[in-house]
């Protein structure tokens, strides 16, 4: 009896304590809000927002609701995180491998890159890329064309817009190509395991990816035209490009800063992963006659990935959360649009901050879940 009390009483008390603290905080907030005539509720979400947003992936105007404004902010956050994660992964792998190079110049350049970008506060880097870009980039009328049809200007990067006809046919062909590749890979693996024959899967895959969509152009009635940005005069001295798509400088600066900063951490994860595989593995693989490429692909990488994935997941989560610094340079992300403008216009601080927190939590947990699934997939499977 005494033992049971000893074991459970402290735990029950601890739980009770936490519950009471939360209860107290809620009650206190409730009382203070009552005193000041503020009411709590989420009705405001369906009200008209009456403010505009600079850049949106979905149709949005001031006559839409606050809920739609939330969605606009959320999609912008996801967009910048998604692009930055891809870029930082590619950069990170290259830099990480470069740090292990036997070439003195490559090795040291990579090391300097890592030390430089990871040791400067991210907010400063964001300001640097934004204001440096704004100062350095030409006004629209003075911009030279890049690749003939795109213009990098102080007001944004203007690229041609694609105008599709029968886009769905094209997408179905792409999908068909991907399914065909998966079938082909399974068949090739099977062939290798049972008969010991190898077929050039990569070559066939690339061919499929090119040929099938190409067929859709020839026989599926798909057509693609480009709408090229054209200079338009706004006043005596100010111009803008019309037509095409404009990527705002805020987005570009943010992606640059986030991916350069995070890639240094990813690079260190990659280096740690590769160095974590013992030398004997490499030597043993080489001694059974595998080519250096095969050694890397079949022996080193599968083992290194197990070390790389968990810490890299952390970096992806950090990047997503860091994207909230966007508000400093006017990129309309979740924090700027929803926890900024919408909060100010409605005054619903507690509601909006809790929604924003929950949203970031959900995004982070989703990324963690995907990476955990991937980690499970590549971990050692005992046969």
């Amino acid at each position: 009896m005494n033992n049971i009390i000893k074991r459970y009483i402290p735990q029950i008390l601890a739980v009770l304590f936490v519950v009471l603290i939360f209860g107290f905080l809620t009650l206190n907030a409730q009382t203070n809000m009552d005193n000041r005539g503020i009411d709590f509720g989420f009705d405001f979400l369906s009200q008209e927002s009456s403010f505009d947003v600079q850049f949106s992936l979905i149709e949005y105007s001031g006559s839409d609701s606050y809920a739609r404004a939330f969605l606009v902010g959320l999609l912008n956050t996801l967009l910048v995180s998604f692009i930055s994660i891809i870029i930082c992964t590619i950069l990170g792998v290259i830099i990480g491998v470069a740090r292990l190079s036997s070439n003195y110049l490559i090795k040291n350049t990579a090391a300097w890159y890592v030390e430089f970008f990871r040791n400067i506060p991210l907010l400063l880097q964001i300001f640097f890329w934004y204001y440096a870009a704004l100062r350095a980039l030409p006004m629209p009328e003075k911009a030279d064309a890049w690749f003939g049809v795109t213009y990098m200007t102080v007001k944004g990067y203007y690229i041609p817009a694609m105008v599709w006809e029968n886009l769905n046919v094209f997408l179905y062909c792409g999908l068909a190509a991907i399914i065909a590749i998966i079938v082909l890979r399974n068949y090739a693996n099977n062939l290798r395991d049972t008969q010991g024959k190898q077929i050039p899967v990569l070559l066939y895959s690339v061919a499929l990816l090119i040929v099938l969509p190409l067929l859709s152009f020839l026989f599926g009635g798909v057509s693609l035209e480009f709408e090229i940005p054209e200079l338009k005069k706004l006043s005596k001295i100010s111009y803008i490009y019309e037509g095409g798509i404009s990527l705002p400088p805020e987005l570009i600066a943010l992606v640059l800063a986030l991916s350069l900063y995070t890639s240094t951490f990813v690079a260190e994860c990659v280096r740690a992963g590769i160095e974590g595989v013992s030398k004997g593995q490499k030597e043993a693989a080489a001694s059974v006659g595998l080519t250096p490429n095969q050694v890397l692909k079949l022996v080193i990488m599968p083992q290194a990935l197990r070390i790389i994935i968990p810490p890299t997941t952390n970096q992806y989560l950090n990047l997503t959360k860091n994207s909230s610094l966007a508000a400093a340079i006017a990129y309309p992300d979740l924090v700027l649009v929803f926890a900024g403008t919408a909060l100010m216009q409605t005054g619903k601080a507690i509601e909006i901050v809790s929604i924003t927190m929950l949203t970031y939590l959900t995004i982070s947990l989703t990324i963690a879940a995907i990476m955990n699934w991937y980690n499970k997939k590549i971990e050692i499977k005992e046969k």
Partner: protein
Amino acid sequence: MFKIIKQLTSLVAMFAVLFAFSTETMAAKKSKTLENTKKRGFVRCGVSQGLPGFSNADESGNWTGIDVDVCRAVAAATLGDATKVKFTPLSAKERFTALTSGEIDILSRNTTWTLSRDADIGLTFVGVNFYDGQGFMVRKGSGIASTSEFKNGTSVCTNLGTTTELNMRDFFDSRGISYEPVVFEKADEVVAAYDAGRCDTYTTDKSGLAAQRTKLSAPDDHVVLPETISKEPLGPVVRQGDSVWEDIVRWSLNTMIEAEEYGVNSSNADMMKTSNNPAIKRLVGAEGELGAAFGLDNEWNLRIIKQVGNYGESYKRNIADTGILPDRGPNELWTKGGILYVPPAR
């Protein structure tokens, strides 16, 4: 077992402390702001992060401006010393939360009085210390002389969390012009981006434009367009639920304006005690018991006029002499063709 009892008692003690604390904060719903201010010895005032003429700190940390003077007047009235103010610089985004959460007691930060702010979010506006309106600034070389010359695709730099964002949408939507809003959290960032050519125009309250123009690299290359697209009555704000404190702030501001109306200023206030005009005598505490209504002594208004000055002095010192808006426009007394008009102090 003994150990557990000991743990239990300490836990209970902790809760007792917590709840004692909580009942104290809850009892503060009556007029405690004045009491707390006296106990603390200074007035807690929220101001801008630097808007010349309204609230701006110099190199040594001294705050000046007409918004600052409202807080100084309250300090003079309640504590007897206009310097006993603690200023908290706030962004537009933070200001209301700072006030409703009790971090500051007066928000005097060029804040526009609107219905939803007054009624919806636990704030009370006590008056207007500057009548303003939203305008646009453009580059002189652009040849734009009126807002009617804006074209589709104009990019507009402005501040986050202000009525500006809403007015701008009303303005462009009603004219059917598509525009690109570029919204920054801090005024300095807006200035930097506009200066770098990111935006074709910069919009905010006209007084703000006049003040921020001085921060541009070449102020003379920019011009504020003549049109005013909104009403922006700016004034001090207090928390809802403390009507006595609300009255103190309101009448501190009114005293400054009425003092100008009756020609009482910081240098002649003492002499006015012997004036023949009862209204003037009331204004300098020589007649009536006006302070008693707020729980203040009878010279509260005299101290405001002596230490801070009347509204005209404050305007001249902060806005006219600094070259921001030499012309008082609507912010002139009603007796001189403006719209400054306050209820009588009697």
